[in-house]
């Protein structure tokens, strides 16, 4: 989704999310109610993402993709270290807004937090979809990513659209971070594993297809657990390797993913 709006695969996405989650943690520690901290974090994340784009990405905007990717990786390392410096590398518990009692559906018990997190994620996805599909601003953002020159010719401020894209990305990342933190605990490296899963999902489903990425996520999860359970020597220790191997295989066999379109630029 965010890739659609910015046309750059942002490797720092996970660290931005981690950093936002720490902010939320600070606010909660200061005694703010959960949902106040939640929305305040979203606002700060949005502004932060916007500023990062303006300050860090802007100067390399017209540089080759590789340069942008390197800058993103640099950003990843910096955010990671700064978070470690400010908050230390010791894991911290992060509260869930949902009750602790499991919810029973038929004979199956679900963790309330898992269900809540899924619900929140779905709401965010639907909102994003509606935003990109039906609002003029969303349309302009997609246009700016696809064809900057033509976008300027219809009066779109392309630079601002990219900045907005980063703001949105940071905001969505913050939601993800706050939903994941109660499960994996809060620490500067908490997004590393998750980011690999996210890239595996997106690669498998196709970077150009948000729906494909969601389905790719299911496929990665199912495959990984099946392989982990039934192939003895992999077990739980090498589960993450399965996801990495899937990225590699997809890139080798079908780089555009299962549902993505190959992007062909006419010369």
């Amino acid at each position, binding site marked *: 989704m965010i890739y659609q709006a910015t046309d750059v695969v942002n490797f720092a996405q996970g660290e931005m999310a981690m950093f936002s989650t720490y902010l939320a943690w600070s606010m909660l520690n200061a005694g703010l109610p959960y949902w106040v901290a939640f929305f305040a974090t979203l606002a700060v994340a949005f502004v932060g993402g916007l500023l990062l784009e303006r300050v860090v990405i802007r100067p390399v905007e017209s540089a080759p993709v590789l340069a942008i990717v390197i800058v993103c990786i640099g950003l990843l390392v910096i955010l990671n270290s700064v978070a470690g410096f400010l908050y230390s590398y010791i894991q911290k518990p992060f509260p869930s807004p949902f009750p602790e009692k499991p919810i029973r559906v038929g004979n199956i018990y679900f963790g309330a937090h898992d269900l809540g997190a899924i619900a929140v994620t779905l709401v965010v996805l639907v909102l994003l979809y509606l935003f990109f599909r039906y609002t*003029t601003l969303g349309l*302009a953002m997609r*246009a700016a990513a696809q064809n900057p020159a*033509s976008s*300027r*010719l*219809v*009066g*779109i401020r392309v630079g601002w659209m990219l900045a907005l894209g980063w703001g949105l990305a940071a905001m969505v990342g913050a939601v993800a971070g706050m939903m994941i933190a109660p499960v994996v605990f809060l620490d500067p490296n908490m997004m590393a594993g998750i980011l690999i899963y996210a890239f595996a999902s997106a690669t498998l489903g196709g970077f150009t297809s948000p729906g494909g990425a969601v389905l790719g996520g299911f496929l990665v999860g199912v495959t990984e657990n099946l392989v982990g359970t039934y192939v003895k020597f992999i077990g739980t220790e090498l589960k993450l390797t399965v996801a990495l191997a899937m990225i590699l295989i997809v890139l080798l066999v079908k780089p555009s993913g299962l549902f993505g379109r190959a992007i062909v630029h006419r010369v």
Partner: protein
Amino acid sequence: MPLLEAVRLEAQYGWTKVLHGLDFTVDEGGITTILGANGAGKTTTLRAVCGMLRTGGEILFDGRRIDGKATEAIVRLGIAHAPEGRGTFVGLTVEENLRLGAYGRRDRSGVARDFERVYQLFPVLAQRRRQAAGTLSGGEQQMLAVARALMLRPRLLLLDEPSLGLAPLVVREIFRAVRTINREERVSVLLVEQNASIALSLADHAYLIETGRVVMSGRADELRENEAIRRSYLGY
């Protein structure tokens, strides 16, 4: 007073100078064409007007300097550009392309009326409104480019070789639409063309440029009668 006026317009790509002090005007409500062979600087001229590259000299729109302004600011003054290669948003639908054309306009009812208007001018676009623009034929994409430019409700329309690579029948349809808009809505047009005969039949004023300089200019009907033009550009 001319709507658009270029005074000693210069432009370059890197170290290569492409325009060497071009003077031309487009009258309010008029159609001006710039003719020239490949590489004469026609496309560059339009790009220069839109602020898509660094220029020297002056460009005045409605009496005010616009050179040095950002493209999106120039566009908002009412200059619509249907660029070379059509500049379609191939991944978006026809309707979304047209909505983008009206980006920056706030008069919803006027935009709705203009949708009807361009669908009336190019009925095929109405049939294809939900289709991705990349799936359209070349002619349909050119119509979309013109239609998208019109959605801006421009005072000045810049057209970059709308006839390029299209069947004569399609070219005629597009030019008929341009003439209609010009007559009924007094949209001024700056048309850049290699196809001199069709351009001269539409325009009321023409310039002939060679390697970034104006070599001849005058009323379109006069240029059509000109011996040299006829031999080199009209081919009879």
